[in-house]
């Protein structure tokens, strides 16, 4: 029996007008696997991510989640299926309060269909204390995001992805703009995803970051998959050598 993947893309292409962003991409994310996605700017990493999260619909090709064909994957459907994303853009609403950002697009409601503001605030408070490490009294669930630092904003985006019991967490350039210490913490967090049996797709410019947390590395180049490596079967030096080669020639060999 063929193993079921958490997510599988078969022969997916995406065009934006004349531009072919992705060409016949096959991508798999296994059970309890962390896949690192590497590639130069414009290689199609963000497009691939946004197809996985339902933000873009592929021009052609098929999407399977847990072995089930998904005809049209939208953001709400992806979130319902347990895919949460920490976007490069962070996807925060800066003028809004912390609790509104945590529950952005997934507001909790009472049985009468009205917003359960009290519950959202108390959950936010709990998350702040337990997961975000905000202990200063200046920050409360009613603080607006615009007053936060870059690291704090990233923390909000990550905690939000965790809150909804995601089975698959997609991190798009999460280390961008973070300090060294914050970056180390983030990498620990990605390893933690693996420890608790979940899966992740991790995108980063930095090959060291990706190599240190990923089980498998997928290299994208000009909209196509140039190669895949299991990190325990390739040394970091060899991987870097191959990356340079891909960047120069567009192929691995």
């Amino acid at each position, binding site marked *: 029996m063929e193993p079921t993947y958490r997510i599988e893309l078969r022969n997916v292409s995406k065009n934006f007008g004349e531009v072919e962003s992705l060409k016949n991409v096959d991508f798999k994310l296994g059970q309890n696997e962390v896949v690192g996605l590497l590639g130069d700017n414009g290689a199609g990493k963000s497009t691939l991510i946004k197809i996985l*999260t*339902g*933000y873009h619909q592929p021009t052609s090709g098929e999407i399977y989640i847990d072995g089930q064909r998904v005809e049209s994957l*939208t*953001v709400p459907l*992806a*979130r319902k299926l347990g895919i949460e*994303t920490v*976007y490069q*853009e*962070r*996807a*925060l*609403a*800066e*003028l*809004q309060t912390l609790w*509104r950002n945590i*529950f*952005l*697009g*997934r*507001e909790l*409601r009472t049985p009468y*269909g*009205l*917003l359960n*503001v009290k519950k959202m605030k*108390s959950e936010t*408070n*709990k998350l702040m*204390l*337990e*997961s*975000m*490490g*905000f*202990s*200063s009294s200046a920050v*409360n669930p*009613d603080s607006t995001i*615009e*007053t936060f*630092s*870059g*690291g704090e904003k*990233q*923390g909000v985006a*990550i*905690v939000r992805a*965790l809150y909804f019991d995601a089975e698959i967490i997609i991190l798009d350039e999460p280390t961008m703009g*973070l*300090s060294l*210490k*914050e970056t180390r*913490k*983030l990498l*620990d*967090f990605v390893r*933690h995803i693996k420890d608790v049996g979940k899966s992740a797709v991790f995108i980063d410019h930095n090959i060291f970051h990706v190599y240190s947390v990923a089980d498998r590395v997928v290299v994208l180049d000009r909209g196509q998959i140039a190669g895949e490596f299991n990190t325990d079967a390739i040394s970091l030096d060899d991987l870097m050598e191959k990356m340079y080669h891909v960047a120069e020639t567009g192929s691995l060999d």
Partner: protein
Amino acid sequence: MSSETEELSGMDSVPGPQKESFNWKNFLRSNATQLGMILVFFGLWLFFILSAPETFLSPQIYYAFMATTPLFAIMALPLTMVIIAGEMDLSFPSIMAIGMVAFIFIFEPTGNVFLALLAALAAGVGAGLLNAGLVVGIGIPSLVATIGTQFFLRGLSLVLLQGQGATLIEARGSFIYNLLVGKIIGGIPNQFWWSIAIAILCWVILNRTRLGAHIYLIGDNQKSARLMGVNVNRTRLTVFIMMGLAAAFAGVLASLQVSFFWPSLGEGYLLSTLASVFLGGTSVFGGTGTILGTFLGSYIIGAINAGIVAIGLTGFWTELIYGLIIIISVSMHVVMQKRIK
């Protein structure tokens, strides 16, 4: 990056007590604008009483005030949601008129006020759909699209009625008439109660429904809202429809109040409605604003209107002052926003 940002995310738990008590300081801070407005309102009132005591100590002016202010308050409330959502609607004065054209078309042959009211509201929804179609469907900036529909709907009203007005004397005494513009409690015009009911309804929509949460989000950062799965277009469509519905309703109230419909109905409401929203602290850039602020804003505008006339200034002054209020309140908001950043 500063040291307090080092606690990023991660699994380390920081133990701490969870207290949920009412904090007066926070309440004052987060409602400073509204509290300030209440002070302004009473300050103005005192000023008017001192300047024209014989007028402002007699009840008549308050009845007039409570009959006319609701007409634009009822439109300023949903307009607040339109502007929070990052859009603009300048067509509402003409929607008041086109709603009444639909009203007349049903009322004249049938004499049924209830059906006529439904027709007016349906026309309001239709006008809202037209605006949403141009803005959401075609992608025209709402400021431009609704200037277009403002003229188009005005022209349509004039063409359909050949520029003629229509009497509504026959509607007097009907149940709907009494319900809308009668006086049920203590001589206070029902328009006043309608403005309160609609304010409560708008508050619930904006603060206690997903629609309301999404209105704030799309006005703040449309890209983020889309990335997190908010149906941006449906939300924009809904705010334009609510605006159309409210404008048509206000048109019915305004016409029944004077028992006559002029096809120019609505002209003169543009400034007072916009001034109410911006005086109420709604950001012209979207993303922030409150229903309470707009509600207070419209009654302050109404008081200024009454005051200007009572003190003996001419009506010319009202436009000058409304214009000034819009300029000052928007500028203040922009300056304050810059200081935060």
